[in-house]
């Protein structure tokens, strides 16, 4: 040991207290189960106030449920994600690993009382959310034994790719070496047409407050007075 006197072994109880993560291969998933029905109770008691009775609320966050179809469950690709005009993306539209949902509820929800749920409650409320998305039936009981099967029904389970150059390692399938955008540094008479295509509309001029108050009152520039709308 190069550093005498520094650090100590963790006890098994300590590791147990903190090692709560659940991986996609379900490593870390504690044994237990919970029904959709029990989940509905938990949801209505501890979640619905923020996320809405059907997980549809966008009052404190994006809707959790919606946008997925029975067909998606079959293909494992959420079709709406391919429609550029589809408004918003729910949690269930994006979710590709069921472990993620379980783990996140277990570690972080309810938002104002994270880590207050029992293992059974986490199973149950996860089951309820999956049920809201039509992924499991009304009488389903989610457990460590059937999580892997449920994974096979996630609407977007085939929706992810790691074939890109933004991972600073080499151990992911398809990780690319070369960036996907290749620009050149043209210096003279470059082939662009410098025409303004997008600019804030005048009515939004003070949407971010009076910009004069967001700049130093000395220096090469001042902040634009946007306290009143209009005027340029």
């Amino acid at each position, binding site marked *: 040991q190069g550093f005498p006197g*520094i*650090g100590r*072994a963790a006890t098994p109880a300590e590791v147990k207290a*903190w*090692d709560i*993560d659940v991986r996609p291969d379900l*490593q870390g998933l504690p044994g237990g189960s919970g029904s959709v029905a029990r989940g509905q109770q938990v949801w209505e008691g501890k979640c619905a106030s923020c996320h809405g009775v059907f997980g549809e609320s*966008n*009052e404190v966050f994006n809707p959790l449920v919606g946008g997925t179809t029975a067909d998606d469950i079959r293909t494992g*690709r*959420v*079709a709406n*994600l*391919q429609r550029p005009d589809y408004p918003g993306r729910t949690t269930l539209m*994006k*979710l*590709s690993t069921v472990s*993620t949902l379980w*783990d*996140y509820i277990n*570690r972080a929800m309810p*938002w104002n009382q*994270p880590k207050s749920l029992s293992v059974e409650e986490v199973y149950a409320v996860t089951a309820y959310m999956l049920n809201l998305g039509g992924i499991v039936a009304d009488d389903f009981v989610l457990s460590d034994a059937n999580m892997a099967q449920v994974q096979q029904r996630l609407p*977007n389970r085939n929706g*992810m790719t*790691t074939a*890109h150059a*933004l*991972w*600073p*390692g*080499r*151990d992911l399938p398809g990780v690319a070496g070369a960036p*996907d*955008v290749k620009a050149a*540094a*043209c*210096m003279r*008479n*470059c082939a*662009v047409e*410098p*025409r*303004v*295509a*997008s*600019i*804030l509309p005048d009515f939004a*001029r003070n949407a*971010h407050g009076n*910009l004069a*108050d*967001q*700049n130093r*009152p000395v220096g*090469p*520039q001042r*902040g*634009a007075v946007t306290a009143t709308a209009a005027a*340029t």
Partner: protein
Amino acid sequence: ASGLAAAGAAAQPQGDPNILELPEHTRGLGQPVVTDGYGKPSQYERNVQRRQSPGLTQTRQASVSFAPLQSLFGIVTPSGLHFERHHQGWWDVDPGKHRLMVNGLVKTPKVFTMDDLMRLPSVSRFHFIECGANTGMEWGNVAVPTCQYTHGMLSCSEFTGVPLITVLQMAGADLKKGRFLLAEGADGSSMTRTIPMALIESGEVLLAYGQNGEMLRPENGYPLRLVVPGVQGVSWVKYLRRVEVGDQPWASKDEAIHYVDLMPDGRHRQYTSIQECKSVVTTPSGGQVLLDKGFYSINGLAWSGRGKVAKVDVSVDGGRNWRSARLQDPVMSKCLTRFSLDWVWDGKPAIIQSRATDDTGYVQPTQRQLRGVRGTRSIYHNNAIQSWLVQESGEVKNVQLA
């Protein structure tokens, strides 16, 4: 262009009353030392604040505040103005009670106190941190008026801490099988992110407790956060309580539901982490007004998550012609680089842009080029060239070009 410019001129034939009549501070006795054991900025600097973007988030604990880049100099971000990003609020954690656990594919799981960690050999390095969602509001069209809101989820500090690899070695980590590491925070969200072992092995990833000479600020993870140079901020786990060595990535909430980039084919890119080469002109920039025609220094920031900035070019005609800017040394890896270029404004409309190239040869793309590959729904990793329109009135507007 503006009446303010007259301030410079001698207002009366004799001269400027600010010179002729000696100010109070030239004729009196000032304030004593240590009025503040920990000092604060001038009262005249009160406009320089971090700010929320109205309507961007529904709550203020799962939210973001933006650094006022338009008012900053050099590369160091004052810690009081560092951008914030919380998922379940910030805490002022008692460092005497904070612990770091190391477990997973290790010979002996370990626990370290802050006393322990601060005794280990440390390094101090300047690095930028940028939220993966920085400039995310601008994928489709202009959404916000100033560079505080377009680019302000960006800050840069001198971080001090222990290379993460040191404690992994102390625990006897299996670096052959353990090609991934989970970093986990101690706050309510207990933020989890997967870090590639290759980056940790390079010695670049730090268990940081110091920021700009003092301890981290509570909003930025006091007393311990992970520093993952070049990688988006969400991986710089705050209030770091645990790291686990493993043989596969974790697909945590913020790498499976958020911080995934939607591509035109409807697939999400997962584990996108690197912040690619990017730059922005900070003065003059959106929401500002030039006082007058004449000389200006165009100033801005450039950075790359892959290494050093090699070159920054600036255009004042919307990208048709470019000149190479001066780079302020030291140019450091995965750190902000300040650039500047002389410009005489003739009072006519102008479109100012900057374009950075890093030492891998990667050139910052135009919005059109980026959208050509990624569409407009990625949310994350928008590193496109920014355009500022200087109008005849002197007012500068955020614009996007065709």
